[in-house]
């Protein structure tokens, strides 16, 4: 579903690479957790997958389409929720969702059914007629999630999706992720909450200083020499400390 081939990115004026020679493949039916300390390159990688940044080297393929060469086809396959969804504050929730519905070409009947389902699930039905600027951060997050799920994307990409969600919504959201992959779809998300990754992900990748330093199932990571029985937290700390976090 996602294939990154030798992807590198260095921001203009930066002394180091944000992402360096990243090779990664995420298969259909997988929930893939992308972990790393602050500034490790998680968001840069996600932005390259969704077409918000262009890699300096390498290719990003989504559902077989090159994100840069066949942008529209690739984007049709995915739904994206950024870490801080910046939605049009002066549209109502319903107007925003209808805009997304129109852009993805979702017919009226399907749209109504899905909107009803997700708005009820996220308890946004009553607020949907209000301006987005009147929403709390959690409500904006849920609206962005609804928008990203509206076209039932084959690939669901989320940057720190649990931030701003209350425990109930967070639980609900994990269920949505599981349901989504049960239908053969893929979920790719970044997170700092290691417990969530441990519970939810089929595979995790750990990135540090722009390089993928570990990737596999929890069992595979634990089987690496000297790490038998380690928790994900311990593994993460050991791996990222070795590399040295760039945080000051």
């Amino acid at each position: 579903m996602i294939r990154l081939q030798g992807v590198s990115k260095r921001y203009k004026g930066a002394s180091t690479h944000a992402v360096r020679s990243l090779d990664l493949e995420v298969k259909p039916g997988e929930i893939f957790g992308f972990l790393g300390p602050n500034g490790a390159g998680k968001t840069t990688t996600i932005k390259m997958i969704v077409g918000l940044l262009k890699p300096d080297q390498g290719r990003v393929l989504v559902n077989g389409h090159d994100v840069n060469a066949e942008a529209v086809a690739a984007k049709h396959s995915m739904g994206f929720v950024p870490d801080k969804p910046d939605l049009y504050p002066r549209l109502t929730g319903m107007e925003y969702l209808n805009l997304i519905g129109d852009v993805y070409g979702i017919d009226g009947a399907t749209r109504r059914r899905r909107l009803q389902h997700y708005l009820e699930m996220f308890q946004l039905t009553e607020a949907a007629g209000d301006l987005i600027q009147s929403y709390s951060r959690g409500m904006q997050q849920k609206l962005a999630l609804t928008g990203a799920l509206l076209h039932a994307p084959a690939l669901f990409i989320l940057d720190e999706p649990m931030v701003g969600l209350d425990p109930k919504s967070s639980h609900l959201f994990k269920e949505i992720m599981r349901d989504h992959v049960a239908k053969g779809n893929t979920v790719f998300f970044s997170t700092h909450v290691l417990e969530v990754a441990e519970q939810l992900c089929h595979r995790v990748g750990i990135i540090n200083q722009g390089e993928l330093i570990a990737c596999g199932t929890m069992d595979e990571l634990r089987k690496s020499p000297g790490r038998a029985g380690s928790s994900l937290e311990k593994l993460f700390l050991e791996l990222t400390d070795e590399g040295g976090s760039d945080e000051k």
Partner: protein
Amino acid sequence: MRNRVWSLFLALLNVNYGWSAAKYYYLKKRQRVWEPIVIAASIGPVLVMMLWFSWVMTEQLFMAGLSFGQPHLPLVIGTLMVAVVGLFFGFFYVLSSFYFSNDLPTLVPLPLRSWEILVAKLGVILTGQYVLGAFVLVPMIIRYGLLARGGIPYVVIALTVFLVLPVIPLVIASILAVLLMRFVNLSRFKDRLTLIGGILLLVIVFGSTYWMQENVGTDDPSVLIERVLSQADGLIYSIGRVFPPSVWSAQALGYATNATGWLNLFYLLLASVVGLVVLYLLGEKVFLQGALAGFEGSRGRRKHKQVEVQGESNSAFLTLVHTERKLFVRDPNFALNGLVGYVLFPVMLLIPLFGASLEGNPFERLDLGGLHPFLVVGGIALFFTLMIAMSMIPSTTFSREGRYLWIIRGLPLSIEQIMATRVVAAQMVNTIGCLLGLIPVSYLFGWRIWEVVLGTVFGIILSSTVAYLLVLLDLSRPMLDWVNPVKAVKSNLNAIFGLLGTSILGLLLGFIFYLNVQSQTLWLIPFELLLISLLLGSGGWYLGRQVAWKLWSKI
């Protein structure tokens, strides 16, 4: 299901003009219902004046032009005006909408082609040009049509010209912007560019005003028309060279009943289509790359200079004063709108000094050099007071915080302390800004030092009391819901109310000074200034004690 480009266009239009926001606040929440009435009452007369001016000017130019064989001169001037305004402001609108807007990270991951985003955004800017056209071009076209008895062909051509004319300047502006953004990553210098653009705009506005005054300046409209008509051939020739579409438009309208008119309309349509095709191709090839380059603008791990950790402590009061001052001055959106008055004043005085003569300079006519010392004192105090309102620093102080207001709300400070810091910060900027203009002016007109010092002291006292009231005004109805910081100052009614109230105070003071002149009691001016300051200060202080805390807790 709507077409996706149409749907995006409607959504952007909605966001731009705030239709849903208006419906939500005025109809659903029943809040700020008086706002549209106040806006209509303030803008309405200006629009009526614009319509009337276009109507009358068209008639006069048409009548006068008939004898010169140039009856369609008003059309050339009208279409040129719309085109030039469209090209100049369009460039800034396009840059701000294409590259500096916050919605690109939302739109780029959607399955939209580059040109689709471009067209939807361009469409929104175009509607703004139609609004301008509706008040300048439409009355001109209608009046001309009635005078020239245009008939149905004229109506068809007029409608087409109205719709097509703003397209060409906007397309040119867009092509320039798209190319510029492709090869220069301007987003990294967004703040500097806003500042340079704003200063450039001021220079152009004042330069052109000065040029007009030097070259065609006259108080008599008939003399102006005569001058324009006497240079009509040259004017049309020059315009034709610089911007042919305005001449095509005028010719199309002027000769609507014969082949010349339709041929010119064809040129206009052809140029628009060619422009749109070029823009489409550039949009597909270049726009997205420019936007993506913009996303990287301020990112990246750069090598930072080692900064010494500052452990020096300051009083909370002074720190807040300096923070308010820095936040205002460092944001070009605030600084350009707020500090423009301080720049304009000396520039207005200095520009004519470099000209051929001082004739026509209003300050020369006022004979400022021969003023009574106490009138100078009163005038300076009045200047300080008007400028503090014009700066908008006190009247938008809480509004400018927007979503960051929580920072100040979380601090262990009383609202009285916070308000005091806001007044001092505003006064700090105001005093420096006013002195910047005042010192050269005092030198030019030979005012004595004691007059300037006394005027400055009274000015600081009076303007501080006014600033306190303006801070209180903003506290009563802060405009916190904004994304674009310009809106916090430019679209803020508190700034307008503040300016209006201060102008009324200025008129009142002016009237009192007039009475002083008449009754030869100019020595009373300092006492009057003190009395008014005392009244405003104590009234404001009492009002603040009564309501400030309630208002602060209500936000």
